């Protein structure tokens, strides 16, 4: 492939949305209330829509037989490059919201930069997505505040979720080889530069939600290199079931 770095770069971005979209989609019919259930699945739908734009572009760059569906459904676990954060399971609603919030803050900052990409398609996709993601971030940060500054039980659960997920946040700012190559060509976003603002925004919100900012300095990594937590395998077996069982089926 001529443009392998760009291809891998796009997959790195899109895999985050794909896996997070699948996680939010799991809540369909299981949300704590009808309105919240619909909100979570709408976020999931937005993310899948964004993924389609990215994968359609990636398939065009690959220039062979593969389609957006092949890229989404037919890779092996080690070939997904999403961050570990987004694959973490829906332990309870606080975890789902905490995961969404910790990703949304990053996602919003990332898309703001990607809009400036010298690649026209990526910049157009970012310009489209950022409007949707700003709604996601409002939704998830509202809930973090509501649960954190809510009852003693909701506060405890929200704190537990933030503490549990914190170890996956630093990976958002690691650069892959494809990242570095794309930054050098003014196509990609230098994620290392997003880190300070990210923690400032997250810490401010946690404070507003009367939650403790975790002190742990030990962080997990590996997702961007395809080394995942145990949870991804189970998620993929769900996600890929139809395509693996009935190859080439279409809806």
């Amino acid at each position, binding site marked *: 492939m001529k443009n392998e770095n760009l291809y891998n770069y796009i997959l790195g971005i899109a895999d985050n949305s794909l896996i997070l979209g699948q996680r939010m989609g799991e809540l369909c019919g299981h949300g704590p209330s009808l*309105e919240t259930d619909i909100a979570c699945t*709408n976020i999931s*739908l*937005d993310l899948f829509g964004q993924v*389609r734009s990215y994968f359609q572009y990636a398939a065009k760059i690959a220039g062979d037989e593969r389609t957006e569906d092949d890229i989404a459904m037919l890779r092996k676990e080690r070939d997904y490059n999403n961050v570990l954060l987004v694959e973490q399971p829906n332990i309870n609603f606080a975890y789902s919201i905490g995961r969404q919030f910790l990703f949304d803050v990053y996602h919003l900052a990332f898309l703001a930069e990607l809009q400036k990409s010298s690649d026209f398609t990526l910049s*157009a996709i970012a*310009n*489209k997505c950022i409007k949707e993601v700003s709604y996601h971030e*409002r*939704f998830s940060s509202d809930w973090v505040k509501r649960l954190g500054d809510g009852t003693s039980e909701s506060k405890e659960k929200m704190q537990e979720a933030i503490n549990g997920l914190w170890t996956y946040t630093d990976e958002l700012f690691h650069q892959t080889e494809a990242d570095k190559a794309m930054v050098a060509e003014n196509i990609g976003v230098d994620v290392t530069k997003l880190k300070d603002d990210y923690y400032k925004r997250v810490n401010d919100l946690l404070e507003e939600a009367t939650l403790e900012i975790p002190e742990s300095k030990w962080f997990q990594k590996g997702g961007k290199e395809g080394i995942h937590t145990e949870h991804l395998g189970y998620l993929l077996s769900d996600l890929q079931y139809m395509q693996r069982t009935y190859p080439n089926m279409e809806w």
Partner: protein
Amino acid sequence: MTTTEQIIDKVLIPILEKVSDPEIPVLSIMDMGVVRSAVIINDIVKVKITPTYSGCPAMDVIGDDIKKALKDAGYESKIDLILHPAWTTDWITPRGRKALEDYGIAAPLDAQADKEVLLNGKRIVKCTNCGSQNTRLVSQFGSTACKAQFQCDDCQEPFDYFKCLK
């Protein structure tokens, strides 16, 4: 207002106006602003449409419906989905806004007012049933991603509000 050129061949307008949004049947895709260009080149109609939201499941159906409407009018067509410039609620025409309201969906406010409503709980969205502004946000996401759910505290009617997208 986002400025952007919209090029539609005059003879195609009546055909395209008959195609409606499958999720909001009272609203034509022309009033929705999703058709960005439609021109006849060598007897083939080339149509460019842009999605309201990335994940909008209506887009595939809209593409098929346009193709069918044009075919019924004797035209072959090619539909392209474009992302740039991104769709905004500013492109909904005044007629489209009225159709939304009549259908029971409150039309989008301007960006500033929208923020006040969705973030600060300001009561200004007009109830589509009784017209009262004594309405409150129930959920930022309604029956589809493009809408938020509201309830009127005067007549108690629950209704959708089309969120401002800019």
